[in-house]
């Protein structure tokens, strides 16, 4: 681990990691965003007034780089309109479905049993993953079926299961490890079959004690599987940096990790794959942590499309005391302008920051050129030099400083004593 990571960020998940997963009731109205992944855009497959059932595909596209979305509830499409999309930081198209409480299920995806797994073809499994709308649930949102079909001339040596859960408030992956480890094992089996039996490396933080024990128990029979529990830092939650920590190599910039013979998947993604293959359930629910300045944190199995406000009301979070609500982790997630925003596939956590306890952040002042952002950047970029170039409009210089390599971990903004929003300006992603 010869990576210089000088900045350590303390975790704030002591309470949340002990709370068992609770099934959250279905919403009255589900708001399903049409575009929840990174890739080609989707179009709706239903129109106003249509009846839909649980797990029915309601938006898709012909493009290979897209992932469909499904109805989380049975009911009627009441509207196709705008809703705030936290993945992109802007309002985008969503399908509004009113719950009719009939619990009709769509039977398109037929479950297969574990014994059948050997008989089915890889193409079937990859198609199943795509049809189930599974995307990288760690926050990247990259369609999983693409990661499962690397070019045939690149043999995959390692399947890395990223269970670090580096976002400092989140505990949803940890609860998943503890409660659904057997499901994880099934998912890993599917992935190993598809990728040609690579060695499995499960990387997790050593402070997830219960989860590590559970994993060791469940994976004891599984061949070629290593469980690596180390004090990984926040930055090492990133796939490239995690590989550096595990194997010591640096994935050449601009290359996907299969070039190195490695595929990295988040635990939640693998769980979703297991569900899609063995239960025939597409990605219509996910585990999310409700935490932050709430009385009691919760880990919830919640339907995608449930409005955040519905969850907050259910747990009686004081709406007058809310300063910010952040989806998907305080370091890289986005704060939402309205509580009507729905849960998406990427909502790994809902963090409420209250007016009374949360003192924000620093007001932006002039840069004092302390160069802390430079020493802190895990990618060895020069954030402040890039920012200066960008603010001067000198895009060429910014590119020469490799601004495009930034993945927006937010460490530079975190350490900046002048409160300059370096990460988001450089990464250029939504906020």
């Amino acid at each position, binding site marked *: 681990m010869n990576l210089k990571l000088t900045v350590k960020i303390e975790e704030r998940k002591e309470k949340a990691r002990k709370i068992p997963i609770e099934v959250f009731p279905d919403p009255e109205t589900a708001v399903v965003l049409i575009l929840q992944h990174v890739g080609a855009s989707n179009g709706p497959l239903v129109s106003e007034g249509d009846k839909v059932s649980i797990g029915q595909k309601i938006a898709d596209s012909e493009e290979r780089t897209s992932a469909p979305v499904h109805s989380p509830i049975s009911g009627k499409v009441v509207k196709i309109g705008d809703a705030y999309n936290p993945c992109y930081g802007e*309002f985008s198209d969503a399908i509004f479905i*009113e719950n009719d409480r009939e619990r009709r299920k769509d039977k398109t995806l037929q479950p297969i049993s574990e014994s059948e797994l050997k008989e089915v073809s890889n193409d079937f499994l990859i198609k199943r993953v795509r049809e189930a709308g599974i995307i990288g649930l760690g926050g990247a949102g990259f369609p999983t079926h693409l990661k499962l079909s690397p070019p045939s001339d690149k043999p995959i040596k390692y399947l890395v299961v990223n269970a670090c859960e580096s976002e400092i408030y989140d505990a949803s992956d940890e609860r998943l490890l503890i409660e659904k480890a057997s499901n994880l094992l099934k998912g890993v089996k599917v992935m190993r079959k598809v990728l040609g039996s690579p060695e499995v490396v499960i990387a997790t933080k050593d402070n997830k004690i219960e989860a590590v024990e559970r994993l060791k128990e469940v994976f004891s029979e599984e061949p070629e599987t290593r469980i690596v529990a180390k004090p990984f830092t926040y930055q090492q939650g990133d796939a490239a940096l995690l590989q550096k920590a595990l194997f010591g190599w*640096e994935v050449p910039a601009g290359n996907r990790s299969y070039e190195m013979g490695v595929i990295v998947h988040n635990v939640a993604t693998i769980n979703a794959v297991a569900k899609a293959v063995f239960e025939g359930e597409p990605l219509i629910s996910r585990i999310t942590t409700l935490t932050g300045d709430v009385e009691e944190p919760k880990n919830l199995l919640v339907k995608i499309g449930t409005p955040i406000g519905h969850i907050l009301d259910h747990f009686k979070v004081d709406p007058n005391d809310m300063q910010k609500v*952040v989806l998907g982790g305080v370091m890289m997630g986005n704060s939402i302008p309205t509580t009507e925003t729905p849960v998406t596939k990427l909502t790994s956590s809902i963090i409420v920051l209250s007016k009374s306890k949360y003192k924000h952040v620093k007001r932006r002042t*002039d*840069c004092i050129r*302390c160069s802390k952002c430079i*020493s802190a950047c895990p990618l060895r970029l020069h954030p402040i030099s890039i920012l200066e170039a960008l603010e001067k409009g000198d895009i060429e210089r910014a590119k020469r400083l490799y601004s495009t390599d930034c993945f927006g971990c937010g460490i530079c*903004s975190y350490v900046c004593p002048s409160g300059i929003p370096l990460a988001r300006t450089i990464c250029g992603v939504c*906020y």
Partner: protein
Amino acid sequence: MEATPKKTYVSRASMTNRELVTEPSPHVTGRMTKDLLMKCTFFALCIIAAVSYLSYGFDSIIISAISVLVAVTCDYLLSLIMKEKGPLNTNSAAVFGLIVAMSYSLGLPKAMALPESLTIPTLAGGYEQYMYPALISAVGLIVFKKLQGLAGRKYVNPAAITKLLILGLLFMPTISSLVPADHNQMDLKNPLIKGAFGDYYPMETAIFGATLITCYGSPSLNPANPYTFGTAENPLPDVLYNMLVQKYHGWIGGVSSITVMAVGICLFALCRGYIKWRITLAYLVTTMLFSIGMGYIYGGDIILRLLFHLFMGSSIFMAFFMATDPATTPLTDLGQIIFGSGLAILTMLIQVYMGFLGGSVLALVIMNLTVPFLDRVGIRKPFGRR
């Protein structure tokens, strides 16, 4: 369309009517702020100011207080005039004021005052000793801190440039103005005019050691310290004590090398990563190597030479507190090392070959001007691009 939605959902129009605050991520930040950094620095400088009481009595405290007050007042007044372009920045102004006071050459304390004829007007005794720091503080804050800040970034250290300009302009025709007169008399330096041609340079010769001993080991110039530790035959302990523990030679900032180093290192540790310690380290190492090299070339006692170049004047203060000013120093690690080494070499050259003691501020200003170039040196290859 028999049923209308029970709730009215947001549309694009409601973007202006936000219920919650949205800000770019990350939504948590580290504890360190600019103000905290300045407060820590101010506290560190206060310790040095307090120690200077032992050497200079209340004079140094009063000078420090005046300088800080002037800087803070100017900052306040400017913030009223400039509004958003120059927001109130009391902590930063206070640090600036204190640095001005610390790098001001006060001269020998009254208790051991030399005859009137030996002192230059800036020295202890008159009202000048309060006036000049106040003047430097005011001009420095207004012109070199605030107005330079308007230009986008600061290029030169405000305290160094102001001191250089004001004292240099006021006294340049007569004698080297950055140094108290007693040093002029000691043959420890030759003023620019005198030393330019012909005359011997004490620091280049074997006499150097003897000169330093006369100045710092002899009670004739330092009545407060009459052979406390050494004897007339072996004055080295007294020289050591002077150079390391307590000086009476005029700079508040350089009053005690050990205090400066201890406070400096504590500050570096406290504000880990926010202060450019590489500059200080490079400066100290280069100075040491250079002194040893000169010792071999010109002869003389190497230990005395090391002591002189490391601890004489307030250069040790400069190395820890002025050269590490974040705004006027390079961003990259390599740039900082080059900056520190360059500063050391330049200081030595100016002091030794130009006979210009107190030349460290000049060296600092010159090095500051190289920063825009040094910023482009040593840009690392990012992850996965080696």
